[in-house]
């Protein structure tokens, strides 16, 4: 399979500008003749839907929630990066590009990452114009803070609710277009299949989550902005409803899935407190600006934190990574936390936690300053754990947070299926391995506001898609398949709940394809998943009927997809015999226990082609070309 990345030629710094100049345009009067389907209304989906409608296209936008304002981008707390250099600390587009590429362990496309850094500045301007209330200095200028993996202060924030404010900005732009009639918004609607006509993406099949009605949408292009698949692990920081179904169904229709095993583990989550737990809550990485991370030096030390004297504490990040210290990147901090817990030095009831201690900064800055910076995060922590972080250190532990794999796209954000575009977390692009804090928000908005509006016009002007309607046989066939699958799920009258299957699958994935992976473990996972899937279809219970608001049916469909999708992750992880970012292959480490990358064999994007459920997918690597930067060892010491 020969698939070009469509990266433009020329010097890195000029590729995007050159490309914009060369992209085909659609006559403004013709834009209103096109209809574009946008699935998802998070940062990427809402910003894309609004921007495309502003250009004059007709847009159908869908989300599974009751309102587009609830997409999970809303939960991002810490901030969004941009290379404004407002702090005069030497930041630049090139430096942001370098930090991001390095943070991603050189497993992203150079040109894509450069473009991301380039448009980052426009994003901040756009959001301010929308009335996003970013934090300000007393002089009225925007405030910045720093995040893991960077030595400059380039993160813009709105208290601990940056994702919420950015999303509400995009949502308000989307709302304006809904009122103008340019966007038709469909809430409580879930995409269940992609429809191809003559090999081109021309529509989707959906289920109305209130009535169960199966409805098809036809359009001239489809944009998937459906977020990540972290809930595969059962426990993650994702919203409860976030799922893989839309992109997985597209994969089954022939879209290539890239780097599925690249799952970002976030170091600062509240530790698990018991088997009942349904989700993990993230504490913003920005806390690491003022919090010091430590564990007792002695294994099995069960004393309360205050009883452990200073010289019996191990500030292991500051010790091992003196340059970055507590601001070491996410993967390094996560793995370091797992290591000290594996040594028996973890804190908290289950020994799966490390302290994030604010005592020193409260002493230095006063509790009032700390409250101003992180007040809402401290409150949230207290609500969940019942402990007051102003008095005792927080306990944190790594958790699945963001998925960097996704459907493969070219430089124009189009998948290998013509007309099918994929943006934000749903695609694999830009970040490669383990991206840095505050750049996910950047990618979602870059794709939606500043990239897809240009590239989709180029596609439409070139492809000139003929009109199709939903009464074509391709739509009828896809609808029939969707109905059949729902019927099959509703016929399950076994003895186990869907949640129990989900939990078991999650355990397998976290154990064998989580923070650390090895050959034997991955092979075990590949043996354990198929029987579990088989049991699901034999022994699960799905109550109720389709023609109703049926939350159990929604969940069952998503878990059924996870049970297939999980194998893809394990195949990908098994093939990648290198450590890269948080994808730590135990066989591949330096004598000091650091991740050992293998550029000679793995400087590529692993693209997988569906070959059937339970079958090994086919691998089609896309070599990564580095014209400007030579991949270097990633050191944060």
């Amino acid at each position, binding site marked *: 399979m020969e698939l070009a990345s469509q990266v433009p030629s020329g010097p890195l710094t000029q590729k995007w500008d050159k490309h914009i100049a060369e992209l085909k345009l659609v006559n403004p009067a013709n834009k209103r003749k096109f209809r574009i389907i946008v699935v998802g209304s998070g940062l990427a989906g809402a910003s894309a839907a609004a921007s495309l409608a502003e250009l004059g296209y007709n847009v159908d936008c869908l989300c599974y*929630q009751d309102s587009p304002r*609830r997409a*999970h981008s809303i939960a991002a707390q810490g901030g969004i990066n941009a290379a404004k250099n407002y702090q005069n600390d030497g930041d630049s587009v090139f430096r942001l590009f370098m930090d991001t590429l390095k943070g991603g362990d050189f497993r992203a496309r150079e040109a894509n990452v450069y473009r991301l850094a380039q448009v980052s500045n426009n994003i901040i301007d756009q959001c301010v114009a929308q009335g996003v209330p970013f934090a300000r200095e007393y002089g009225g200028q925007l405030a910045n803070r720093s995040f893991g993996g960077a030595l400059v202060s380039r993160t813009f924030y709105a208290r601990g609710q940056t994702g919420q404010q950015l999303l509400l900005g995009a949502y308000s732009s989307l709302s304006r277009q809904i009122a103008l009639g340019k966007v038709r918004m469909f809430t409580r609607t879930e995409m269940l299949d992609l429809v191809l006509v003559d090999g081109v993406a021309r529509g989707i099949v959906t289920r109305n989550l209130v009535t169960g009605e199966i409805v098809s949408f036809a359009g001239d292009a489809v944009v998937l902005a459906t977020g990540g698949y972290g809930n595969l692990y059962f426990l993650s920081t994702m919203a409860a409803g976030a799922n893989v179904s839309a992109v997985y169904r597209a994969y089954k229709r022939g879209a290539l899935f890239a780097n599925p095993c690249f799952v970002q583990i976030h170091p600062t989550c509240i530790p698990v407190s018991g088997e009942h737990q349904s989700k993990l809550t993230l504490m913003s990485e920005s806390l690491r600006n003022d919090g010091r991370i430590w564990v007792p030096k002695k294994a099995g030390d069960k004393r309360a934190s205050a009883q452990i004297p200073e010289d019996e504490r191990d500030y292991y990040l500051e010790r091992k990574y003196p340059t970055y210290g507590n601001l070491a990147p996410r993967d390094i901090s996560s793995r370091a936390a797992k290591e000290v817990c594996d040594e028996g030095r973890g804190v908290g009831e289950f020994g799966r936690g490390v302290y994030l201690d604010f005592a020193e900064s409260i002493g230095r800055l006063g509790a009032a300053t700390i409250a101003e910076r992180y007040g809402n995060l401290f409150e949230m922590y207290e609500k969940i754990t019942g402990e007051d972080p102003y008095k005792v250190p927080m306990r944190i532990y790594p958790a699945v947070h963001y998925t960097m794999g996704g459907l493969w796209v070219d430089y124009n954000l189009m998948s290998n299926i013509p007309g099918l575009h994929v943006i934000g977390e749903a695609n694999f692009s830009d970040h490669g391995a383990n991206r840095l804090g505050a750049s996910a928000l950047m990618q979602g908005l870059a794709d939606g506001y500043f990239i897809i509006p240009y590239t989709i016009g180029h596609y439409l002007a070139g492809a000139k898609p003929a009109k199709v309607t939903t009464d074509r046989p391709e739509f009828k066939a896809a609808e029939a398949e969707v109905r059949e699958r729902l019927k099959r799920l509703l016929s399950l009258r076994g003895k186990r709940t869907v949640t129990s299957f989900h939990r078991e699958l999650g355990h397998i994935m976290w154990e064998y394809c989580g923070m650390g992976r090895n050959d034997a473990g991955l092979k075990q996972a590949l043996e354990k998943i198929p029987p579990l899937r088989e049991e699901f279809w034999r022994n699960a*219970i799905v109550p109720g009927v389709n023609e109703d608001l049926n939350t*159990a049916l929604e969940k069952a469909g998503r878990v059924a997809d996870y049970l297939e999708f999980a194998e893809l992750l394990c195949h990908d992880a098994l093939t990648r015999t290198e450590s890269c970012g948080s994808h730590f292959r135990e066989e591949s480490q330096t004598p000091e226990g650091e991740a050992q990358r293998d550029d000679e064999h793995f400087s590529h994007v692993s693209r997988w082609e569906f070959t059937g459920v339970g079958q090994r997918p086919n691998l089609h690597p896309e070599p990564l070309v580095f014209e400007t930067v030579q991949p270097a060892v990633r050191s944060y010491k």
Partner: protein
Amino acid sequence: MNLTLRVWRQKSPREAGRLVTYQARDIIPDMSFLEMLDVVNEGLILKGEDPIAFDHDCREGICGMCSLVINGVPHGHQSGTTVCQLHMRHFHDGQTITIEPWRARPFPVLKDLIIDRSAFDRIIQAGGFTSVNAGGAPDANAIPIPKEEAELAMDAAACIGCGACVAACKNASAMLFVGAKVSQFLHLPQGHPEREARVRNMVAAMDREGFGNCTNTYECEAVCPKNISVRVIAELNRELRRAAFRPPPAKRAVGAG
């Protein structure tokens, strides 16, 4: 701990609902309220019964989707908290808990505890935005905004649109919600060109949806999970009065192009 739950069950918007009693057993104090309901639902599913339908998504207190009235209080008695962040350690063994949906005519029940809050979206569509297209915005620091003003805007912008304010109000008023959005833009220069149109249109939309008026009982502020102050309602009223003294907007000219 073991609890007795009285839960509002309603099959569809057309059918009458009623309170049904369930037992919640072996509940751990560290569970969130929604995790407690998950446990009850697992039991119902195993018995072949329809699980209790309730809205939830982020479970981090920010998406605004969860919406339960617990013992008569939207989001429960813990102040400044959404249901998903309410933990069972705040209840006691043997307690009886009554769980109902938001009750307000503009928020019809879809099923059990799930309501339709699309009226809020329509109010935002009426003017809760600045009319700016993507691309071409001036440098973000071109217009300085005093920190105090930015903080007031942020206080209001923190609204998560959950609708607890409406559920707590005897008049089902949405003025805290509308006031929050009006206040956010009032304190930012970006909002000013559409200042009068925004408040007029949003209030008109609010009335159209059937929300009532504010009578200053402050129940909204008391239940707001984001502690939005009734200050925003005062600002909303002031803005509306101010707009009344301005000439109505000129009819939009039809473009020649």
